[in-house]
């Protein structure tokens, strides 16, 4: 690795190693960084590396497992690695789709946590050049009777409803389940789908040398600062004090960004586009540079700010919402700016693409960060030893013949039907606009998958999200494979052919062998099921450290992890939407059949 510039030596600080952890780096990671750089980083650089190597951005614990996933197939237009995967549905149409979690932010501030989750996943979709046309939400909460759960359910539903309804994308399906393991750490997984013409498929790249880098959307504030690190940290009382980690979303601003971005892509004036998600400005620009295999120089003085006195660390890592990076097609910059002005969006040129392969940031005339793009994007990978928990093994092997069969099965049925996990979700999905865009043909409640028409064609797109975490808890391999199979059955039941999946892997702390075992097994199970069903994995999201600390009666503490929850989002196509099926009985005298064993 060659070094063209070095940040001002006075900024370098070898003693940073003692506080590597505050940047989200393990001591060994800090040492690795120094040996690759052949110098010490400055604090900004350490923080940037920490963010890029976090689980959220760098997938350091999960990526090695992903080799179990099939990712290719004739239907795959875009596999993992971009903002979202894209499948071909025929007639020149493609569907971009992805799932993302906002678990930790929702535990702290359910309304805004869930709302910004919707905003983030929608940006991933329209950054691909696809118009978002459906959202599904997979939600897990603790004891339904507890005040905390009521507060969380109401807040999360309010947040999803607030954001999705306002921006005008229908929420067409999802899941809501309750189990005590989610009491302190709810799961909020949101999947979005977008429709695009093949020729409009956009990429998150910097393009070529000489291109300018343009910042569009909301100004940068201190909100959501350190969110990427926060999402990978244990949830404890400290996060209550971790106030700036809360981000507030503005669906109106996002609507402007959505329309403007799609218009720009359709007009052919953008060479690259990406949203600023976790680790904000840094991760978006850094990933775009990596995909182009080029370097960039950006001037942090030009980043539009909402507050005064912001320093590089804040400018780089803020997770303020509703911001995008666009790279105009050379020579067509003005066209892009005019188009953005129509939507009253401010644009600022903050940098350019260069020959070198570094990620270089300037501030007040000085180089404050100069790191190889590859180093930032190639996080160390960890393969750990997974060991099954003895208690779970025993539970699985329990002899069920010793469990007495209840005498009054009618009562059991009633009890089951009244459990919030099984009972109707109408009070929840009625708070979502399920129909805006006038494409939703099979609405929530009418079947186990939603079906949207494609205007101007006879095709339909079906989508579902599924996982039974109790099953995964008992046997992560079989349980995760079953989630894929359930999703495929749900699509088949509306008459759709399954095409591909996205996943959201929600687990506890991967450093714990029994948690790592669950991840390993679940990923294998998903991979094998996807191979069997010919539904490749086109993208997904990982959320680890879903756990909380609880006091034992004797005053000691124990860590409670959630049930392992690999949520599967699956997309399918109906060549002829008039052939769709729903689950209601259709008339007297019809026959009921049982298929399968």
């Amino acid at each position, binding site marked *: 690795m060659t070094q063209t510039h070095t940040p001002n030596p006075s900024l370098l600080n070898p003693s940073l190693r003692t506080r590597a952890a505050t940047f989200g780096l393990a001591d060994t990671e800090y040492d690795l960084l120094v040996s690759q750089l052949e110098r010490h980083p400055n604090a900004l650089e350490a923080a940037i590396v920490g963010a890029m190597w976090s689980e959220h951005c760098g997938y350091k614990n999960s990526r090695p497992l992903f080799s179990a996933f099939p990712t290719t197939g004739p239907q795959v237009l875009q596999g993992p690695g971009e903002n979202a995967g894209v499948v071909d549905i025929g007639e020149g149409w493609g569907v971009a789709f992805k799932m993302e979690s906002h678990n930790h932010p929702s535990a*702290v*501030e359910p309304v*805004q946590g869930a709302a910004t989750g919707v905003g983030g996943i929608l940006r991933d979709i329209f950054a691909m050049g696809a118009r978002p046309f459906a959202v599904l939400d997979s939600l897990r909460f603790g004891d339904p009777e507890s005040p905390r759960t009521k507060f969380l359910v109401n807040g999360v539903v309010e947040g999803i409803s607030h954001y999705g309804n306002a921006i005008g994308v229908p929420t067409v399906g999802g899941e809501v389940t309750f189990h005590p393991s989610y009491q302190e750490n709810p799961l909020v997984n949101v999947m979005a789908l977008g429709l695009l013409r093949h020729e409009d498929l956009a990429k998150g790249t910097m393009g070529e040398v000489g291109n300018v880098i343009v910042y569009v959307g*909301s100004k940068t*504030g*201190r*909100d959501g600062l350190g969110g990427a690190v926060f999402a990978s940290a244990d949830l404890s009382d400290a996060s*209550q004090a971790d*106030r*700036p980690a*809360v*981000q*507030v*979303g*503005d669906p*109106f*601003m996002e609507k402007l960004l959505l329309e403007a971005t799609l218009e720009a892509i359709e007009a052919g004036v953008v060479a690259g586009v990406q949203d600023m998600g976790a680790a904000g400005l840094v991760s978006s620009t850094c990933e775009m540079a990596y995909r182009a295999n080029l370097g960039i120089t950006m001037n942090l003085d030009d980043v539009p700010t*909402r*507050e005064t006195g912001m320093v590089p660390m804040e400018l780089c890592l803020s997770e*303020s*919402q509703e911001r995008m990076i666009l790279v105009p097609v050379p020579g067509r910059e003005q066209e892009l700016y005019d188009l953005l002005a129509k939507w*009253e969006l401010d644009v600022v040129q903050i940098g350019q693409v260069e020959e070198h392969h570094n990620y270089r940031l300037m501030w007040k005339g000085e180089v404050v960060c100069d790191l190889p793009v590859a180093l930032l994007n190639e996080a160390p990978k960890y393969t750990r030893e997974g060991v099954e928990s003895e208690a779970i093994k025993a539970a699985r092997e329990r002899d069920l013949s010793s469990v007495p069969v209840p005498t009054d099965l009618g009562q059991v049925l009633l009890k089951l039907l009244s459990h919030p996990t099984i009972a109707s979700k109408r009070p929840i999905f009625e708070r979502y606009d399920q129909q805006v865009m006038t494409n939703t043909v099979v609405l929530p409640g009418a079947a186990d998958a939603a079906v949207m028409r494609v205007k101007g064609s006879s095709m339909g797109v079906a989508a579902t999200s599924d996982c039974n975490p109790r099953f995964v808890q008992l046997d992560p391999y079989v349980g995760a494979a079953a989630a894929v199979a359930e999703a495929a059955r749900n699509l088949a039941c509306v008459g759709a052919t399954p095409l591909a999946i996205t996943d959201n892997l929600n687990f506890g702390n991967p450093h714990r062998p029994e948690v790592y075992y669950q991840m390993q097994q679940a990923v294998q199970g998903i991979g094998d099921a996807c191979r069997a069903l010919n539904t490749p994995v086109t993208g997904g999201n990982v959320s680890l450290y879903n756990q909380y600390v609880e006091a034992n009666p004797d005053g000691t503490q124990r860590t409670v992890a959630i049930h392992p929850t690999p949520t599967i989002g699956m997309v399918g196509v109906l060549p002829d939407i008039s052939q769709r099926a729903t689950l209601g009985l259709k008339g007297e005298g019809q026959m009921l059949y049982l298929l399968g064993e």
Partner: protein
Amino acid sequence: MPQDQTKTYQAKVFVTLKPSILDPQGRTVERSLSHLGQQVSGVRVGKYIELQLEGERGEVESRLKDMAENVLSNPVMENVRWELEEAALEPA
């Protein structure tokens, strides 16, 4: 009259977003006002809650503080302040 008599109090609670938190409402209102030819700045939109409580002043004060800080506002992103006065016997 002794201070610790039971009375009806009128409380006014003001909830505002913390300064570092984005206020989309304020931003839009500011932008809209400027479209209408009104130059204003620093618009922040918050909540204004009126309520009545009964009790002795000291006890009412501490109940109000508790409610304001823990129920009427979300300390994660909002600031809250309040005013308390004896309720007028007849509406002003």
